[in-house]
């Protein structure tokens, strides 16, 4: 199965990259942008019992793949 993980900066954390992208989009004429947040996307191919895999990956997200001080993560198993 495939795990799809998105990691995004927490709302309270300064995201200068997101801000720079938003400015560029606005300069291009795109209207109504309420916020841009630049994060990371990871795909992990993995075998095993679904529940065990999910628990392991959630732990990996907390320990390595994201930093809970500054980031949130979202994990989807397909």
């Amino acid at each position, binding site marked *: 199965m495939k795990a799809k993980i998105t990691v995004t*900066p927490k709302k*309270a*954390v*300064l995201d*200068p*990259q997101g801000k*720079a992208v938003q400015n560029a989009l606005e300069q291009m004429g795109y209207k109504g942008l309420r916020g841009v947040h630049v994060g*990371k996307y990871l795909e992990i191919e993995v075998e095993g019992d679904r529940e065990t895999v999910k628990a392991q990956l959630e732990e990996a997200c907390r320990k*390595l*793949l994201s*930093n809970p*001080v*500054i980031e949130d993560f979202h994990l989807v198993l397909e």
Partner: protein
Amino acid sequence: MNFAVLQFPASNCDQDAIHVLKNVLGHSARLVWHKDQSLGAVDGVIVPGGFSYGDYLRTGAIARFSPIMQAVQQFAANGGLVLGICNGFQILCEAGLLPGALIRNRSLQFRCENVFLKPGSSHTPFTRSIPEGALLRIPIAHGEGCFYADDATLDQIEREDRVLFRYVDAQGNRSEESNPNGSVRNIAGICNTARNVGGMMPHPERASEPILGMADGRWIFESILAELAERQKSRAA
């Protein structure tokens, strides 16, 4: 005193730290490879700057799981002195030895320049020998040096007098202009609650002798040495 200076793939200024400790200050220092399991018999550990593991994922994120960092965790838990400089600061935050995190500079630019630092607390092993009222002129060189922690953590750091340095202007005033990376409350360095682990973004090892144009960084190493000498004395007593 004996120092270990860690070396990861893409560490930098590791040799500068060795040079200052050995040739400028006359102590013993050696490089310890990131795959080593043990620090050996050392009095202090320097986690140097650089771009360990290519800064992949996040700065310091992968380095913190290297074998030598397990030894550093143990050394720190036993009260050993550990100073992280630049990438070393990032690694110590990722390892949970220091609170907060270092994120991309507010300007999105890599900043390489000299800054003024105002010591926050004189009651730490990293700042104790700095003359009262002195400002330190020390270089920074980083793209991800914006210190972030939530307000509760910052309040605790300040309440416990654990700010090592703040970015200030030449007159010692804290301002937006003197903050090179957007760090919260202009924080350039902190220590842990137990006060034996410190981290700072500026590079004291690049500014510790007059021939380099700046020697203020030496105060930080002198502070560490004074602390270690006092510890040695109290152990002998």
